[in-house]
């Protein structure tokens, strides 16, 4: 264990990862309960496309990807309002196209040396001090918003129409939520990879929902489960020398299956 903490990059990863897991779990509860589980997937694919474009053009990936993903998230929200295309097909179209575009650009650009794998599956070595600062700021903002607007978040998640009728500024919260999700996804992408980041949003809430039937307890326990599964996954990947992001996802999967079994036995 002492050896683990002597690697500063692992400590950095642990800090950034824990903060991101907390944020992702908090954002995940409304996403799962509103049955928007594919949104994380869609946004991370757009993030991948954006990073590829930035790299090809020689721009800073993060600074380019965050606004690009925010725009995409507005676009997805708008498409959901449009009744001609259903929300999930909209996300599917956008996410596949962005992923294809990203891979295409990277492959045709000569002289650019990008490790495609680290974008697709994450790379804990890419975490640096900037990520720590970013994630501390992000976590503070999200926790503050959650504390102040908790009751509004509840009613917006449960019944947006009702929330609007009693004067909750639904459009404002939608935009705010889209922005925060985009930032979580882009930051998390570097750690978890394009293909696996969305699991950080979805799994903890799904696990918590198996055990608890109250909104507040689901929120609290999805945060705890998220932090726990991340830490577990990171340690296991260190000890067994397995890929970090997939080990974290698998530790989430095992947790989910365990609570599912417990749930079935309790019935």
């Amino acid at each position: 264990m002492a050896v683990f903490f002597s690697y500063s990059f692992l400590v950095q990863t642990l800090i950034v990862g824990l903060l991101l897991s907390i944020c992702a779990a908090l954002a995940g509860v409304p996403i799962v309960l509103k049955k928007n589980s594919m949104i994380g997937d869609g946004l991370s694919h757009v993030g991948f496309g954006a990073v590829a474009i930035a790299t090809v053009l020689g721009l800073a990936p993060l600074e380019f990807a965050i606004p690009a993903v925010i725009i995409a998230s507005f676009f997805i929200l708008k498409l959901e309002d449009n009744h001609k295309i259903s929300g999930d097909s909209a996300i599917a179209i956008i996410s596949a196209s962005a992923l294809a575009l990203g891979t295409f650009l990277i492959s045709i650009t000569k002289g650019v040396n990008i490790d495609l794998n680290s974008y697709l599956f994450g790379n804990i070595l890419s975490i640096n001090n900037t990520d720590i600062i970013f994630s501390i700021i992000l976590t503070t903002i999200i926790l503050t918003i959650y504390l102040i607007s908790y009751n509004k978040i509840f009613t917006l998640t449960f019944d947006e129409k009702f929330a609007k009728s009693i004067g909750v500024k639904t459009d404002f919260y939608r935009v705010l939520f889209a922005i925060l999700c985009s930032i979580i996804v882009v930051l998390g992408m570097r750690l978890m990879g394009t293909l696996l980041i969305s699991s950080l949003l979805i799994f903890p809430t799904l696990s918590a929902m198996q055990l608890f039937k109250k909104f507040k307890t689901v929120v609290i326990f999805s945060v705890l489960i998220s932090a726990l599964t991340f830490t577990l996954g990171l340690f296991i990947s260190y000890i067994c020398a397995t890929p970090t992001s997939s080990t974290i996802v698998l530790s989430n999967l095992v947790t989910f299956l365990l609570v599912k079994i417990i749930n079935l036995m309790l019935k």
Partner: protein
Amino acid sequence: MITLKNLTIGYDDHIVAKNINAKISPGDFVCVVGPNGSGKSTLIKTILHLMKPKSGKVIYEDGLKQNFIGYMPQEISLNPNFTASVFEIVLSGTLNRKQIFYNKEAKKLADRNLEILKIKNLKTKSFCDLSGGQRQKVLLARSLCATSKLLILDEPSNNLDLKSKTALYQILKDINKKQGITIIMVTHDLDHHNLIGNKILSLNNDFFYGPTSDFVKKVHQEEK
């Protein structure tokens, strides 16, 4: 309570109903009827100021405020597996009072409405474990937390069996009579016309607004 003046309603480029004129008085129980697509839901969204009228006006009277109308949207739009306790849901009806956290008064109000609807025993139950009839009562309790004047219900009896439906209508009649709360209810339940509500607003091809008895007469004449 509310006056609809030369109202034309619609969304995007569509106009769904024209020249709606109606004066809804305190204590009224108005049923909004009409075939699918005739604009029933659009009308109540316009009344709630959630949609803008294409032309004409919705005028609130008697101190009615938009945020203090108890709106009950159709239940179909909700996630049936939502993990929330009944109390959490009912309490959220008090959010129009602009407090950040629920105070004692809000909790008292929620408790009182649980009692009125006789669902105090469900307080700690989860929404996902309730029957259709119980869900409607929970949503009604939430709407009652938001208002002391006007309830607007969008097809509350949808997906209910006859027994739950009759029970729900009885509760609505009680709320209307005993608490003096005005009710506007969208329904496509024609069998109940002569049983519930004192006024009908019909969005059929020929617009009608007036006492239920007149509407029944009119329908009978047309049938002959």
